[in-house]
């Protein structure tokens, strides 16, 4: 188990986080007093059955959604104290995103999509870093293509590159391989693994695929809005085993 007080030096953390939808009878506790932290330089997977609150936790951690009570921190900053403008800057500079689908702006080329967060912030692109990222995801030959001209796997690679390009404190990935065939999925996961091991990136990934979770350093299990378990250095068999227990 993790320590009950999250270390403020963690890349991201939630403290007594609760998220309640609806009122009275129709009240749904998507998150119920969750306390968890995500160490820098680690690849963490969040798992749980449908409706366990794993996506909500991630959205709140990333500043995309707000909590009903409790606090979330990114790089030691309490997000509840930030206004829309500050949240925007945080998302642009400290956080990277990889979604399950619809990751890219259809009218921009792959390269333009990769540098978009930097461009939006008016930040000069670090060309050396960009080259490194692009070659890490093997996109050199596809940079001028529009998303519609790329395969699903390639599109996700662009999304990974975009998340890496601004060197965020932490990257949140929401079922990044959910829409991909297993080969492309494995490719994306190895890129993410590589980003953590070799480039020192911090990644938090929501997934329901035990194989994907096996790429992580640590797996946190959620059920009914609560953290119920965790494993470090998992194998897919271990994960599957835990999932079965949660499901029963």
């Amino acid at each position, binding site marked *: 188990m993790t320590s009950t007080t999250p270390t403020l030096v963690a890349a991201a953390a939630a403290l007594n986080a609760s998220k309640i939808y609806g009122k009275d009878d129709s009240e749904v506790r998507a998150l119920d007093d969750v306390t968890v932290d995500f160490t820098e330089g680690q690849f963490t997977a969040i798992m749980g059955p449908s409706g366990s609150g794993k*996506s909500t936790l991630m*959205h709140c951690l*990333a*500043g*995309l*959604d707000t909590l009903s009570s409790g606090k979330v921190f990114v790089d030691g900053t309490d997000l509840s104290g930030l206004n*829309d*403008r500050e949240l*925007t*800057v945080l*998302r*642009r*500079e400290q956080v*990277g*995103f990889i*979604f*399950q*689908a*619809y*990751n890219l*702006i*259809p*009218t*921009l080329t792959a390269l*333009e999509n990769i540098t*978009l*967060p930097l*461009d*939006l*912030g*008016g930040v000069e692109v670090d060309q050396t870093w960009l080259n490194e990222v692009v070659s890490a995801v093997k996109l050199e030959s596809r940079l001028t293509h529009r998303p519609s001209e790329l395969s699903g796997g390639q599109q996700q690679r662009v999304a990974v590159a*975009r998340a890496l390009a601004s060197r965020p404190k932490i990257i949140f990935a*929401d079922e990044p391989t959910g829409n991909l065939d297993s080969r492309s999925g494995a490719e994306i996961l190895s890129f993410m693994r590589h980003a953590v091991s070799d480039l020192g990136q911090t990644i938090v990934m929501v997934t329901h695929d035990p194989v994907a979770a096996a790429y992580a350093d640590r797996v946190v299990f959620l059920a009914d809005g609560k953290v119920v378990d965790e494993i470090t250095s998992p194998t897919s068999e271990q994960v599957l085993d835990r999932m079965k227990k949660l499901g029963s």
Partner: protein
Amino acid sequence: MTSPVIRLTLRGVLARKFRILLTVFAIVSGVAFVSGAFMLTDSVKTAINSLFQELRGDIALEVRTPIAFGDEARAKRDPVPDALASGIKAVAGVSSVELNITRESTIVKPDGKPLKTSGPAFGISWVGQNGLDGRTILAGREARGPNEVAIDKASAKRAGYVMGDTVTVVGPTGKGEFKLVGLTGTGKTSGGGGASVCAFDPVTADSFLGAKGLADSIYIGLEKGASRSTVQKDIAKVLTSKYEVIPGEQSAKETAGAINDIIDIFGKLLLGFAAISLFVSAFLIFNTFAIIISQRLRELALLRAIGASSLQIRLMILGEALIIGIVATGFGILGGVGVSKGITALFNATGAAFPSATITISTRTIIASLLVGIGVTVTAAMVPALRTSNIPPVAAMRPEMGFTAMQRGKRLVAGAATLLAGIALLCIGLFVQPGGAIGILGASGLGAILLFLGVASLSTSFAAPVSAVISRILPFPIWPMTRSVAGRLASRNAQRTPRRTATTASALMIGLALVSTVAVIAASVQKSFKDRLQGSVTADYYVTSDGFQGLPPAFAEKLAALPELGKVSPFRASTAQINGESKQIGAVNVDMGDIVNVKLTSGSFASLAKGQILVHRDPARDLSLTVGSSVTITWQNGTTSKLIVGGIYSDSSIAGNWLVSLNVLAQASTAPPVDFFIGAKIAPGINIDVARAAVDKVAEEFPSAQVQDQAEFQKSREDQLNQLLIIVYCLLVFAIGIAVLGIANTMALSVYERTREFGLLRAVGMSKRHLKRSVRWEAIIVSVFGATLGVTVGVPLGVAVSIALPKSFVNGIQIPITTIVFVLLASIVVGIIAAIGPARRAAKLDVLEAISAI
């Protein structure tokens, strides 16, 4: 490196080229009318100014009688005695003096028919080879002696006369035959700007044109090197104060100015129309942007999620509006050239003589077009753009968490408040009438806009129930569309998104509201006009002139001499001042009392013979005049008459507001009078055909005369009104065209939005035909909804405006049921037309692709 916002904006526009093209088209037409209005007025004015400048030629100075007040260009001035010429000629520096005698003279073609002209038909006095006034001899020589004439080359060609022919000319004193000795031109052209010109030597002109030793004015040419201002002062010294000496270009400027005023009115009409079409376009743009934004919800949310600020998103949307605005303005200005040329051509085809002009595009035109085109587009996109701030970034992953729409309660309050404010302003504008014309137009115009906005906003609340009703009663009560699956789907779709249904319908609502407003006003005006004419047109014959200068008095005299006719009276008019305000004073002889029924409420018509004045009850009330009170009239030549009110009447449709005898009117000017129309009664016991034949025979001598019996006269007056109304209707139909475009656009967007749904329907077995039908039904529901709203708003609006119009213009409201039913039925057609493209698109969807679309 370009900013990402600019890049996203440009790519966004390029990705939606077709959609945006439709939007652009709506704005283009509005801008085209704005720029066209300016271009038309600018170029026609320039052409008219230069034409009149050219006509001035070498006239350095002009002597004429001054007027006491009023419009310099249209004033009927006292003439100048020919005798003054010799005194002026003697002044040092004067090289030549010419008498300006210009009277109506019609050329009769060899076949005996009068030569029709689009401008005035002039007879003038001409001295020497080339006149001071810019007219030149192009062939032959000037007319000398009583049997010769020179006519303008263009008219000679049209009439088929060649040099040496005998030309018949009808002038103020009657018919004359002259030998054609010369062809004239004006400046570099062979015509007279649509006018025909018959030039006589001064003696012949004096007698044939009935000038009787008096000229309209005297033209003066200067010796080389003479100072104009010195000569002007010297001439003033030899003249009494009864005359004025003015620079030669002054009266040209006055005349051109008077014509320019008419052109300006025309320009304002076009601008008014542009305003309507832009207002409708603004709704269309608002609509398009609102839909485009909800379609791009995920994209915009994604941008927000990866760090775009809400300001950047707003700028991106407004940037797209800006690009649309700029492109549309560019096309709009091109369209304006077309509008301006088209209108000139249209008017010239119907007989008006707009001088041919190169299109002038001034900086003002471009600035106004840019302001209007870009302004309207960006303003209309403002609200949808601001709404993007409500997009939560999390919608990138959960599209169902999109907009939180304005709460129903809030929207009802806002809509009702806008509506009430609009009605209040409209009532103030129409009935309180603050601050003259600008106040009335401003308050009621703004009121109407608020009214429309209020209704548009409120209509969201009842779009669903009304759509349900419409789909239950359409197409006919026997077989409602809800019986078929396609119809039911269409009905549910219209009800499911009341907001979209309402905004789509709003553009048509405004268009049809305007149409029904105008229809009610027009019907009321028409009915009042007809009723009044029926009551007052009691003459058996009306003779009017289709020329520019009215009828010579000789005509009325000849008619009066006919034994077949009973009472005959001419109608003349002159401008005068009463209580410091310009009024039109009519003059008739006492017989008119039996020819035209002015509906006397007190006094007698016979009092005219005693030199008294008859007054319409409206001005009588305003000035508190009753029978026996006195009125002081100042005529334009400065003389005054103090007249006793001899009667009050209530029908001004034919006689106007003030009536005096012909003798009294003679004080207004010593210039030869012209008659506006002549009224006549058949003598008792005379057969109608015999009388008509006698009148027609006299009319043959006066080519510009038009004889009409009661029915013909009434019809011709009604036709004039109808022509005007048709123009107004045409313009409004155009506004509806834009609304159709709006519905088509929105339907296309909503088809796109429902790609997946359509795919699903096709997958479970719906045929292409059914799908098409469903889309078409929905468009019909939306347009019938819009049309119903439009008529509901427009008819009361039309009634309100009709009530507010002066009683002398509208008395009694008429609601044109047929027109309104037609409008409602036409809206069904509008729906079908608007659905053509979108339905085809929906049917073309590939089932598999549609299902997997996100």
